[in-house]
């Protein structure tokens, strides 16, 4: 038998390590039970409520940990068998494993508490909104050939401008438009420096992030915080129950009882996907991101295409930023985006520069972040510092371990200089 190449056994090795962790979890499983509640609490959803309620499930924590160990071991064995017989490992193997693994950890973490599935998912979606918008901004920017490190700055600008404009106009919708303008302005700066002044795109992205943090902090301290009433008390943007759809059990309250910004997100993901792959606009955009000179030789305006696409991306990121303030009825706070832009960047890569995959990656990261909040509110005995780490650890493991080598748009990061 030929020696196995590292590339072929990477997935089985990772799964084996994780299986060892489930084994340890099973050994160390605390005695107790976890209650799983599938539906939402009646009070938290809209007046209509769900059409059907499932009974609560009680699981003995230790028992379920051993069952999980058995299942993960089985999947790992399958993965090894695939690798040794040189078969192509199915992606569903990893996904199935991930689902069991995460569920197992949830049960042990919620030991002695009630785990409300609907609430977990609802929170995940909310936290994912800025990530999804941010990764769409990344898709539109990198697909056209500009590396967008400045997503964080675009989100933060969106959050700041939306809070201020909505307060001044006494209208959250005007605030949303302001957020789009704010995000687009930041991405315009990125485009100007990267395209016209040919500054390294990574460097200008980082600089813009620092600049926006400084600028918003400065304005917040100088006039915003002392005049909260005047500048920083955005009106509420109430969440809307979509009639009918919101009554679907589990999914209804998760997907269709949300802030209008979430509905905008659904349209944005679908819209960006359609535009990229099905329209003339998208074909040209992708051509510019792959091989700008080829696009130039068929009469496509490379620079204009880049400016336009990057700025539309910035506007979308602005919407994501507005979710921090308008979407959650909060006032603007210093650095309130808290690194979401960088996670969005990871979601973009994990999603292979595809808007739909990137959106799912954003949801996954939102889930990890939400877990941290839910656990600290139910009072789990896991140290909170460890939980704070969770989304970032997940990011590193997923991007480095499971994604492997992916190739993005060929011309991303390279300036195009017309001779």
């Amino acid at each position, binding site marked *: 038998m030929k020696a196995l190449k590292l590339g072929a056994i990477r997935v089985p090795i990772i799964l084996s390590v994780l299986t060892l962790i489930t084994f340890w979890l099973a050994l160390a499983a605390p005695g107790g039970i976890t209650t799983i509640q599938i539906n939402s609490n009646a009070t938290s959803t809209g007046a209509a409520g769900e059409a059907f309620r499932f009974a609560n499930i009680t699981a003995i924590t230790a028992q379920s940990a051993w069952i999980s160990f058995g299942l993960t071991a089985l999947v790992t064995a399958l993965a090894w068998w695939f690798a040794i017989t040189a078969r192509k490992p199915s992606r569903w193997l990893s996904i199935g494993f991930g689902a069991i693994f995460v569920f197992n950890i949830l049960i042990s973490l919620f030991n002695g508490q009630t785990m409300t599935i609907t609430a977990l998912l609802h929170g995940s979606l909310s936290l994912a909104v800025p990530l999804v918008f941010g990764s769409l901004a990344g898709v539109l920017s990198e697909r056209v050939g500009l590396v967008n490190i400045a997503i964080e700055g675009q989100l933060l600008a969106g959050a700041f401008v939306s809070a201020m404009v909505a307060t001044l106009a006494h209208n959250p919708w005007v605030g949303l438009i302001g957020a789009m303008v704010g995000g687009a302005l930041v991405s315009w700066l990125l485009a100007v420096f990267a395209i016209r002044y040919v500054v390294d795109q990574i460097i200008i992205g980082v600089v813009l992030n620092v600049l926006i943090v400084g600028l918003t902090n400065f304005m917040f301290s100088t006039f915003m915080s002392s005049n909260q009433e005047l500048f920083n008390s955005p009106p509420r943007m109430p969440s809307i129950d979509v009639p009918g759809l919101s009554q679907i059990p589990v999914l209804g309250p998760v997907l269709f009882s949300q802030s209008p910004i979430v509905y905008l997100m659904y349209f944005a993901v679908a819209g960006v996907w359609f535009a990229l792959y099905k*329209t003339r606009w998208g074909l040209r955009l992708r051509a510019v991101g792959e091989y700008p000179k*080829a696009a*130039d030789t068929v*009469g496509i305006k490379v620079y204009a295409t880049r400016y336009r696409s990057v700025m539309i991306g910035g506007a979308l990121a602005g919407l994501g930023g507005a979710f921090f303030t308008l979407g959650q009825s909060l006032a603007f706070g210093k650095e309130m985006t808290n690194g979401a832009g960088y996670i969005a960047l990871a979601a973009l890569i994990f999603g292979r520069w595809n808007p739909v995959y990137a959106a799912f990656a954003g949801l996954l990261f939102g889930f990890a972040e939400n877990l941290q909040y839910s656990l600290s509110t139910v009072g789990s005995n896991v140290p909170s510092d460890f939980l704070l780490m969770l989304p970032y650890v997940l990011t590193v493991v997923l991007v480095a371990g499971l994604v492997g080598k992916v190739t993005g748009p060929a011309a991303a990061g390279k300036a195009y200089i017309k001779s």
Partner: protein
Amino acid sequence: MKLELRGITKRFGSLVANENVSLTVQPGEIHCLLGENGAGKSTLMNVLYGLYQADGGEILLDDKVVKFSGPGDAMAAGIGMVHQHFMLIPVFTVAENVILGHEPTKLGGVLDMAAARVKVREISDQFGFDLDPDAIVGDLPVGVQQRVEIVKALISNAQILIFDEPTAVLTPQETDELMAIMKALRERGTAIVFITHKLREVKEVADKITVLRLGKVVGEASPDESASELASMMVGREVDLEIVKEPAKLGAASFVVSGLSAISHNGAKVLDDVSFEIHQGEILVIAGVQGNGQTELTEAILGLQNKATGSIKLNGEELLGKRVKQVLDLGVGFVPEDRTEDGLVADFTIAENLMLDRADRKPFVAGLNLRLAFLREFATKLVKQYDVRTQSIETKAGKLSGGNQQKVVLARELSRDLKLFVASQPTRGLDVGSIEFVHEQIVKTRNSGLPVLIVATELDEAVQLGDRIAVMYRGKIVGIVPSTTPREVLGQMMAGISA
């Protein structure tokens, strides 16, 4: 459509790329633009195609003056171009590449891919191209990619078609097919501008020839003129196209490669059981279309292919598994195919480049210091010996012309105590004078009793330089034949058909 260029001048800073160039191409005519590398052929065509703006002169189509501010304008006016480096997006399908820039759409800018496929098939069938509109371009062989490029130029109904060095990447068979396509286009009344420096091709298809040298038109010629006349017009002096070399005095077979195989990083077999031997005092040329394993072969010899298996023996010593430095120390001289990327450090001076491979040892170092005085003396001597045209040995290597850069590389490699000399495409992109010099040096090295391995992609060079020719195709050696083998047979071998 009739094309006329009148007094086109194009400058890049102080460099005059085109000076007062005039040219007329009639419909149904193949007009060859002949000239050496750097004569300004591509610049002229880029002006015509709207990629550059001329500093003087005008372009006339059917006797009407036109102005192009970009390739879009040129295309709209009926000018198409088949680029030397294909302007195709590797991850797009054939249909997507072809329609890019003038996409058929339905309501609201939605792409009409069904219409695109029909259009691709339509044009493809006219010429018997047999293109699959849904194939990913990056997966297609180079010859087929060029057909995509031609279809792309024709889809906007081009009346004037520019072919910029189209045969550089083709096998002899593919070249013949391209010539047939050009003739078919001529029949349809298309005006064709064919840029090349290969005299054989010019003589085969040209109706008219314009020769460019140093940016100026030096004259028009008819295809009946002899190759050596055309060559001297192109170069500006008498040139000897023949390489003079006395019969080989063969010594022992001191360089033996046997069963050499290698796998690329994505698992493809790039070298497949390659075996050959080279005698002392013999030149073996590896011929073949670029990308058939030649690069990997030279890399394996040098120790840059760590996934190679088999054996490479020089004077009985195994090279495989040794590090590059050990291989060089065993007396392997190596000229890489990309001199600016792998042969030189562009930001280093000539002197520094000359000692790159021995900067760590005596006599170049004393204690921890470089002996700069010795280096100066050493570099001055080599620059003179190898006729590097430069003001100073302190000139940065990147500032030299291609020919002089190659002389620096040769000087460094040949000034060591060699047991084997390997050169990959040593004359690529050089002017005729430098080519002669490089050929002389190679023959001299062979006459000194060294085994010499040359990778050549141009058949003419292979036939003239080699004592024997090994043809590679898809990582395999198709056959090793004497250099007197007819071109047709070699061409077949380059397409994988063994003699």
